[in-house]
C-alpha cells in the first residue's frame, strides 16, 4: 500500500508551509523587538511581561474567556436537547430540520449579525415585543447581552450539528440491547447515549468556544466601540497601533490558553471513553 501513503506527501509539504510556518512567525514576532527584520533580530520577553503585569489586559482576557464560556454553556444547554430531538425524529423530519439549521449558516455571519442591529436597536421589534410583555423599555443594543445573543446565534448551529451527527452515528441496536437488558430510559441515556455522543459534544464545544473567544466583529457590531474583547485588542495592535510584536505576544498567550483548555476537555473525553480511542 506504499502507493496510497504517498498521496499525503504534497499536503504535508503545503501544511508545513501554510500552517506551521505562520505560527512559527507569530512566535518569532512575539519574542523580538523589531518585527521581521532579521538583521536587527534581538530576543526579548518584554511583550509578555507587558501583558502579564497589567491588570487591565488580564481583565480583558478574563472577560473574553468568561463570555465564551457563557456562550458555550448556553449553546450546549439549548443545543443538546435540540440535537436529541432531531436525532429521534423520523428520517424525513430529520433532514428537514438539519436543512433548517444549516441554511442560515450558509448566509454570511456578518450579514446575519448586522440584521440583529436593526432588531435590537431602540424602537426595534425586539424592544417592542418586550414592551408588550410588560418588561418596559429595555436597552438592548450595545450591551453585553447583545454580544452574548450574537455569539449564541452565530455559533449554536455548529453545536447542534456536531451533537446530532454523533447521535445519528450511534447504533440503534445498542439502545435496544440496553432496553432488553432492563435499563430504564434515563439509565440508557446516562450510560449509553450520552457517553457515545460525547465526541460530538466535545467537537461542538470546540467549534463554539474557540470562535467565541477570538471574535471581534460581534462585540464591535453589537457591543459598541467600548466593548473590548481580546480579539479586539489583537486587531487593534495589528490594524491601528502597529505594535505587531505585542499583538503577536497576545496571540500566543491566547492560543496557549486555548490549547490548555482544549487539552483538559480532551482528557475528560478520554476518561469517559474508558481511555479507549474512538472507533
Amino acid at each position, binding site marked *: 500500500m506504499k502507493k496510497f501513503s504517498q498521496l499525503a506527501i504534497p499536503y504535508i509539504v503545503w501544511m508545513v508551509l*501554510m500552517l506551521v510556518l*505562520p505560527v512559527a512567525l507569530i512566535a518569532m514576532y512575539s519574542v523580538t523587538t523589531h518585527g521581521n527584520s532579521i538583521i536587527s533580530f534581538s530576543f526579548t520577553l518584554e511583550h509578555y511581561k507587558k501583558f502579564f503585569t497589567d491588570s487591565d489586559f488580564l481583565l480583558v482576557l478574563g472577560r473574553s474567556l468568561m463570555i465564551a464560556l457563557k456562550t458555550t454553556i448556553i449553546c450546549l444547554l439549548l443545543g443538546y436537547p435540540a440535537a436529541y430531538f432531531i436525532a429521534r425524529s423520523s428520517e424525513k423530519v430529520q433532514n428537514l430540520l438539519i436543512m433548517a439549521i444549516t441554511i442560515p449558516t450558509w448566509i454570511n455571519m*456578518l450579514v446575519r449579525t448586522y440584521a440583529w442591529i436593526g432588531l435590537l436597536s431602540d424602537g426595534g421589534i425586539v424592544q417592542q415585543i418586550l414592551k408588550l410583555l410588560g418588561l418596559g423599555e429595555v436597552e438592548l443594543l450595545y450591551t*453585553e447581552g447583545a454580544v452574548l445573543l450574537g455569539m449564541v*446565534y452565530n455559533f449554536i448551529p455548529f453545536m447542534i450539528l456536531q451533537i446530532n451527527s454523533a447521535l445519528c452515528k450511534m447504533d440503534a441496536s445498542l439502545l435496544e440491547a440496553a432496553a432488553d437488558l432492563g435499563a430504564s430510559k434515563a439509565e440508557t441515556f446516562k450510560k449509553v447515549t450520552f457517553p457515545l455522543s460525547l465526541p460530538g459534544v466535545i467537537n461542538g464545544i470546540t467549534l463554539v468556544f474557540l470562535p467565541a473567544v477570538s471574535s471581534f466583529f460581534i462585540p464591535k457590531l453589537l457591543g459598541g*466601540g467600548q466593548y473590548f474583547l481580546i480579539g479586539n485588542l489583537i486587531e487593534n495592535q495589528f490594524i491601528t497601533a502597529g505594535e505587531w510584536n505585542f499583538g503577536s505576544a497576545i496571540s500566543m498567550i491566547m492560543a496557549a490558553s486555548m490549547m490548555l483548555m482544549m487539552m483538559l476537555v480532551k482528557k475528560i473525553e478520554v476518561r469517559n471513553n474508558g481511555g479507549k480511542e474512538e472507533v
Partner: protein
Amino acid sequence: MKQDKRMFGKILMGLLIVFFYAPIIYMIVFSFNEGKSLTHFSGFSLKWYQHMLESRDMMESLYTTFSIAILSTLISTVVGTITAIGLSKSKKVVRDVVEQVNNLPIMNPEIVTAIGFMLFFITFRVEKGYITMLLAHIAFCIPYVILSVMPKVRSLDPNLADAAMDLGATPMQALIKVIVPQITPGIVSGALIAFTMSVDDFIISYFVTGQGVKNLSIMVYTMSKRVNPSINAVSTLVVAIITVALLAINLIPAFVAKQQEKGRGNGSKPLLFAVAGVLVVISTIGFALHGGLKGSEKPYQGQTLRIYSPGEYMGENIIPAFEEMTGARVVLELFDSNEQMYIKVANGESYDILIPSDYMIERLIQEELLQKLDQSQIINMDFINEEVKNLSYDPGNEYSVPYFWGSVGIIYDTTKVTREELEKDGYNIFLNPKYKGDIYLYDSERDSFMMALKALGYSMNTEKEEELQKAYEWFETCVTTMEPEIVTDEIIDNMAQGRKALGIVYSGDAAYIMSENEDMGYFEPLEGTNNWCDAMVIPANAENVELAQEFMNYLCSYEAAYDNSDFVGYTSPNEEVMDDLYGEGGTYEGINAYIPRSGYEMDESFVFNERTRKIISNLWSKVKIVASNVN
C-alpha cells in the same frame, strides 16, 4: 412521559427556528423599505436594490465571496480527500503528527490563524489580494475536509482496496471505484463545511486581503457604521442565491442518506449541477463586472486607479463620472484611521492615491513613501482656497492636493445643552455629571488626545510625558464616571437622530448632522481645536501616476468638488464651491460647522512625532480597555 418529552422538544425546536430566521426575515422585509430607518417600515420600494446594483463594491463583494467559496471548496475537497486516504495508509507516527498539525487552524482561535497568514504573506512579500485570500481559504478549509473524511476512511475495511486490486483493478481504479464511493458521505459533508466556512469567513479574509479586494463580510464590516439599507438588499440576494442552489441540489441530506443506502457513486450529479449552476451565476456577475466596462476608446482605457480613502468620504457620483470620462476602472478601499492606512502603505501595499491627514502626510514625506506631483498636470489647483495651500506639512504643495479641511468640535443637542454651558465648560463638559451616559467620544487616538490636552490647557503637540499622562487621566475619569460610548462614524446617524446630548466630531460630519437635524449645534471650544486638512497624495510605489494626477485634477474642478462636498458635508477646498454650498440656497446654508474657524490663536495643526505618537497610541488603547472594563 414520552409525549411530554416530544412536546418540550417541539417547543424548543420551534423557538430555535424562529430565532434562526427572525434576522433573515427582518433583513428581507427591510430590504424593501422605502425609508432609511432600521426600525420603521415606511412603505414598499426597490430603491435599495437599485443602489446595490449600481454599487460596484457590493456586486464585487458578492462575486469575490462566492467565487472564492467555490474554488476553495473544490480544491480543498479534492486535496483533503486524497490526503485522508493517503494518511490512512501511512505510518501511525506520520498520521498522528499530521493530524496534530492539521488541528492548528481548527484549535487555534481564528484571529491567530489570520495573523499567521498575514505575517506569512508579508514576510515572503506576496502581494495581498484575491490570490492570498484564496490561498488562505484553501489552507483553513482542508483541515475540515480531512477531519470529516478521515473517520470514514478509517472505518473502511483495510482489505477492501487489496481485494479490488487482487481482482485486477489498478490502484487508481481501486481508489475511484471502491474507496471514494464508500466515503462519499464524509466527502460531501466535508465539502459543505468547507463551503460554509469560506462563505462565512471574515477574520482571516480581513487580515489577508489587499488591493481593495473584499468579500461580503469585509464589505459589511466597513460599511455598517452608517445606516445603509443596501446591505439588506445584498443579504436578500445572498439568501436567494443560496436557496436556489439548495433547491437545485434537491435536499442534500436526503440525497446523502440515499447515497448511504445505495452505496453507489453515480448519484453525485445533482450536486455537480448545483455547483455548475452557481458557477454560471457567479461568472456572469464576474463577466459583467470586469468585461462590462469595455466600450469606445478612452484615454485611460484598461487602467486601474487604486484609491485608499477614509470611510464615507467621497461623493457617490465621483467615481462613476470619472470612470465615464477616462475609461479607467477605480477601486476604492476604505480605512478607519490614518494609522491603519500607514501600516498598510509602510508594508509595501501599492495604491495610486491615498487621502491621509496633514500630520500623516508629513510622516509619509519624511519616510520617503510619497512621490512629487507634476503640478503642470493639476491645473485646477488654481481654484483651491489659499487658506489650505502651502500648509506646514507640505510647503509649496509639492506632494499633496487638498481634499477636505475642517476642525474638530462638539456636536450638541440644543434642546438639552445650552451654548453658555459649552462656553463655560469647553471640552470639560465631557466630565460634567449632568450628561452622564449621554455622550459620545470619537475613536481616534490623535483627536481624542487633542481634546484632553486642550481641556487641560496644554498644546496638542506636547512632547511632555507628564502632560500626556495627565490627558490619559482625564480620559480615565471620563470613562469611569461618565459612561461614554466610544464610536467612529456611527456617531453621524446617531446624532442625526438625536440619540445623545453631546459628541465630539469633525466639522464636516457636524455639517451633515445639522443639515439632517435642526436641533443640533456645533461648537468649537475656546480652548482651541485641531485645524486639519486631508489631502490626496501619490505613494512612491504607485503604478498609474498619470491617471492619479488626472483624478486629483478632476476633484479640484467645480463640478466634482461640489458633488463631493455636497454629499459628504465636509468643507471643500474649492473656494467657489464652499461659498456656494454655504450661501443662500446651498445645502449647508448658514450651518456654522461648514465654515471651520480659522486664524484663532489657540487652534493648532498636528505635527508628526513618532515618539509621542507611540505614547498616545498606547494610552488610547488603554483608555478603551479601561472603558470596557468598567462595564
